[in-house]
């Protein structure tokens, strides 16, 4: 009992801070979403009932952006997990210069997103970017990659994958390193192939790490903002606009804070629903394992 009290006391500052940085804005958004607060009210919040939420329901742009954001998140996270796993398995091999290789793969992740996005914009520039230069040197003609929705979307996803794949790989690598070598050797002695080892042993043991990476990245990808702001500006024609960018435009450009808070909160609820759903799925799949009692 006494120990629990001490624990609580020790946790108090952390909890307070968490409440301050997390709970407070959330409550504030909730409150603001039931108010009109824009240049038209002199930025003074005036209660307007559920007007913001009603507007949201019929706001085609919000739902389009929600679809686009979801598509972006699902695609990039799926690619990151697949690629991250492959990279982690590669980095787990006892190669020469493995340490340097590991450090090298982390570079994209260490790069600030805006810098990275500017870099991609330059790479994809028509006609001066290196990608188009390469295409021309192969006899093709330049292509305006960022002027068509499909290619823009593709490269937004690619840039995100390029940047965060190392993070996923590192997380999974950490997971791989917790798997004792004995286990794999035992299975090899049974005559298992590499694929069988991966499927029967490595992947099941990596599940907690995969789930962690999934949750982490999904939450991040659903809030994608700076990458899109810089790389495509949400274009062409809004085809890559994300919910976070829409909320940002509402707040910082349109100064419509009531509606921005509504969009933000709706995004958060969407994320929560998605993560909750994913968690339930994991549980039902029986993959969620509680650590067993020690002997």
């Amino acid at each position, binding site marked *: 009992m006494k120990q629990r009290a001490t624990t609580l006391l020790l946790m108090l500052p952390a909890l307070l801070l968490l409440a301050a940085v997390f709970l407070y804005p959330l409550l504030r958004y909730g409150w603001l979403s039931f108010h009109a607060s824009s240049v038209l009210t002199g930025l003074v919040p005036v209660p307007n009932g559920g007007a913001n939420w009603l507007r949201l329901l019929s706001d085609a742009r919000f739902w389009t952006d929600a679809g686009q954001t979801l598509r972006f998140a699902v695609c990039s996270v799926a690619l990151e997990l697949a690629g991250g796993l492959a990279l982690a398995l590669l980095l787990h091999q006892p190669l020469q210069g493995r340490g340097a290789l590991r450090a090298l793969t982390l570079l994209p992740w260490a790069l600030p997103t805006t810098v990275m996005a500017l870099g991609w914009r330059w790479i994809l520039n028509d006609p001066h970017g290196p990608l188009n230069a390469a295409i021309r040197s192969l006899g093709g003609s330049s292509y305006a990659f960022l002027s068509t929705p499909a290619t823009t979307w593709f490269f937004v996803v690619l840039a995100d994958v390029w940047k965060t794949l190392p993070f996923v790989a590192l997380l999974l690598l950490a997971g791989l390193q917790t798997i004792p070598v004995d286990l794999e050797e*035992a*299975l*090899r*002695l*049974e*005559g298992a192939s590499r694929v069988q080892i991966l499927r*029967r042993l490595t992947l099941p043991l990596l599940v907690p790490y995969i789930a962690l990476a999934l949750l982490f990245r999904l939450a991040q990808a659903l809030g994608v903002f700076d990458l899109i702001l810089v790389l495509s500006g949400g274009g062409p024609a809004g085809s890559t606009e994300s919910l976070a960018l829409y909320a940002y435009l509402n707040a910082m450009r349109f100064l419509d804070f009531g509606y921005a808070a509504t969009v933000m909160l709706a995004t958060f609820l969407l994320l929560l629903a998605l993560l909750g759903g994913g968690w339930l799925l994991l549980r039902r799949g029986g993959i969620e394992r509680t650590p*067993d009692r*020690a*002997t």
Partner: protein
Amino acid sequence: MNLTPAAGLELRQLCRDLGERRLLDRLDLKVAPGECLALLGPSGCGKSTTLRLVAGLDPASAGKVLLDGEDLTDRGPGERQVAMVFQSYALYPHLSVEGNLALGLKVRGVPVRERQRRIEAILDLLQLQELRLRRPAQLSGGQRQRVALARALLRQPRIVLLDEPMSNLDAQLREELRPELRRLLCGREQPVIYVTHDQQEAVGMADRIALLEGGRLQQVGSPRELYADPANRFVASFLGRPAINLLAMEPHRQLGLRPEHLRLGDDGAVAARLQRREWWGHQQLLWLDTPWGTVRVLTAPETPLPTEPRLSWQRQHELWFDPRSGERLAHGRI
């Protein structure tokens, strides 16, 4: 040991290098079918390396691994039909006991029925029926060892390898499990190699002991042979507790005398003075000062000590070594 040249496991000039370091140096060893050979030695002596080479987990740098005359050297670990019990037991933590047993069979494509039958049989044999649904984390150390053993036996191995299988258990459990392990593993048609650093375990488990040091085989033979007729000083001092007394009596020869072979009386070759006494219940160990240094003597617990004790021994128990190389000197050999 009457072995036909082809039967059983044979290691021929087996070497393993890691970078510049030679972990195992030209090992020659034979293990007959049904024989249990203990690989004994201090840590880093090359015993685990040998085991991994036999299993095929590491490639041999030179030499051959032969089974019943068949060359296994270039075969992968999955193609050697080897069963191994790891020091850690290497149980799959995400699977139940049953799943642990089934996985190997699944991987090899054993049909469900056959799988089921064999698992039931092995669960019965090792009395694991009640634990079949538990995860490894829910088992005690002894239970885990039984599961690892069951998994090894399910493999229907041509060779059985055990890598310090009892080092994670407490001393009492170890002694209890030894006969069971022998019953289950030894005396069948497969050769068994048992790696340990514990001489008591080696003596208790093995028909023969191969003693390794620094990647080299020092001596191989029955426990009795190694004890009574050690090839060198290392073998003499590694085997036998309390350790052998090494006395620099002469400039070019070193005399080895085991504590249990020394007697204390009123007359003898060497004068001694009692320094310390360790009482062990069934025996007592005396530490004595002599002109050649401290000497350990093992006697019956209540042996009275003469007022002026002197040490004596029988000639046949003398073991002479070259003080520099440690090689056994022919003089004084039985």
